[in-house]
């Protein structure tokens, strides 16, 4: 049933923040269609009466006490940063607004 078009792949790549070039789109779109066709076989396997499993083991209510535990120093936190300034992560200019 599902055919995934090149445009759809481009849209998904945009949502996933991956700059796919034309060659990659040409390469990936047909592969994704094949995979999708294969996985689409599960449609209708389980009826409405079957609950979905999101965790393999049925656990609930795993909570932590509200007690401070030591974390990282600023130096450790920033140790992998591509760029930093004033003990903050330096990132390129941000377009758009907070959500």
């Amino acid at each position, binding site marked *: 049933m599902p055919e995934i078009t090149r445009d759809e792949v481009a849209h998904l790549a945009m*949502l996933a923040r991956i700059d796919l070039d034309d060659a990659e789109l040409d390469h990936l779109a047909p592969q994704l269609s094949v995979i999708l066709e294969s996985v689409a076989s599960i449609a209708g396997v389980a009826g409405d009466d079957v609950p979905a499993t999101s965790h393999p083991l049925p656990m609930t209510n795993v909570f932590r006490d*509200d007690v401070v535990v030591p*974390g*990282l120093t600023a130096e450790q*936190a920033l140790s992998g940063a591509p760029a930093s300034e004033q003990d903050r992560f330096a990132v390129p*200019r941000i377009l758009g607004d*907070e959500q």
Partner: protein
Amino acid sequence: MSTDTDVTLVPFDDVLAAYDPALGLEVHVELNTNTKMFCGCPAVFGGDPNTQVCPTCLGLPGAMPVVNGKAVESAIRIGLALNCEIAEWCRFARKNYFYPDMPKNFQTSQYDEPIAFDGWMDVSIPGDDGEVETFRVEIERAHMEEDTGKSLHVGGATGRIHGADYSLVDYNRAGIPLIEIVTKPIVGAGEKAPLVAREYVKQLRDLIVALGVSEARMDQGNLRADVNLSLAPRGSDVLGTRTETKNVNSFRSVERAVRYEMGRHAAVLNAGDSILQETRHWHEDTGITTSGREKSDAEDYRYFPEPDLVPVAPSREWVEELRATLPENPTQKRARLQAEWGYTDLEMRDVVAAGAVEPIEATVAAGTTPQAARKWWLAELARRANDAGVELTEVGVTPQQVADVQALVEAGTINDKLARQVFDGLIAGEGTAAEIVEARGLAVVSDDGALGAAVDAAIEANPDVAAKIRDGKHAAAGALIGAVMKEMRGQADAARVRELILEKLA
């Protein structure tokens, strides 16, 4: 970006003539837990940048979240205080979107399984005739989530996001527990819509404070309100397209933002255009909103259950235990106190507006009559707080001290005028009320000898007035009382002075 800064708003009354407003309020409350939502980092403001972080809240590869049980407890208590159902089983979900201040590029939140849902809050709003009306706001849900980091925008003209060269991110705030409280569409408020919005947020704040789960200060950002508004043609039961206004940082701004958006929506609709579903930003300085982000593809948050956390299934026993810890609802409490104290709606409104409910309650508990307590807190101390620019509770006088002063007045030791000087002394930290009366020599003169001499002198100095009083015009006594009080430097009981004057001129 539209050129919406120069829009001509439709006047408020004209908006109401043609449209019915529908409100929706999303309030984020930052909890005052010791630690963050999913890790043991301190959940406090003001540390040096990136010092209150760990692999989990920094989103380092491999790190995992663990739920703060205290935050769940606070969420349930908020839900119960808002008359919500508490979920028997619910999960966290990932809200996926990219933004540099969000370490994992997804926010751990709740989606279709909130911890609390289907509640309500009764909001008191001033009616047309000074009476208090109750407006019921239906609560859709309250759910748990985590806060984001904070960015400093460097370069550009204003330090604002637009035009900046780059940004500097501090993740200390990332992961602080938030409770998002979402109303159902609020319809039928009509002209009161801006007021309902303001009072809802304000009274919600009071509730949160009474619960003790957050500092809930809008100016500090630990209570944030997003205001949704849409207009529908009058009488239509279909909701219009809404806008979501963010960055509304005070109760007054909530009201103003609603008014502004009502006028703007009407202008757009009257021009035959349609409203863009978008996020808008409130500007406190100019009192307008501007267009933010269009809600198109970014809306596809690809929610799914957070696989690193297990479901939350609060037992009914736990929920009932928490219900028993709820403080009295502030609105209900006010209604009860108003009845107990015998205040009029107008009086009660002033008391609430001055933040004097709790001080008066404590003063009355210390033995003062409600009327006297109200007089001191509202007439005397509220003015002083206002002059000093502080909250009433920070004025420097305790309810017990007010009760002590009033007891001295009732015993005839001092009068109201002298009492003001006692308050001066109390604020200056000169000791107890009694000590101040003693030290400042403020006690009224009750020695009839000294008082009688002063009365005789006043009669002699004002023969015309004395003659009138002798003729039965007792109202003229005021002039003589004034003269006596002046002579006694205020340290006399005016009622006793009046008695003496009338006796002598009978």
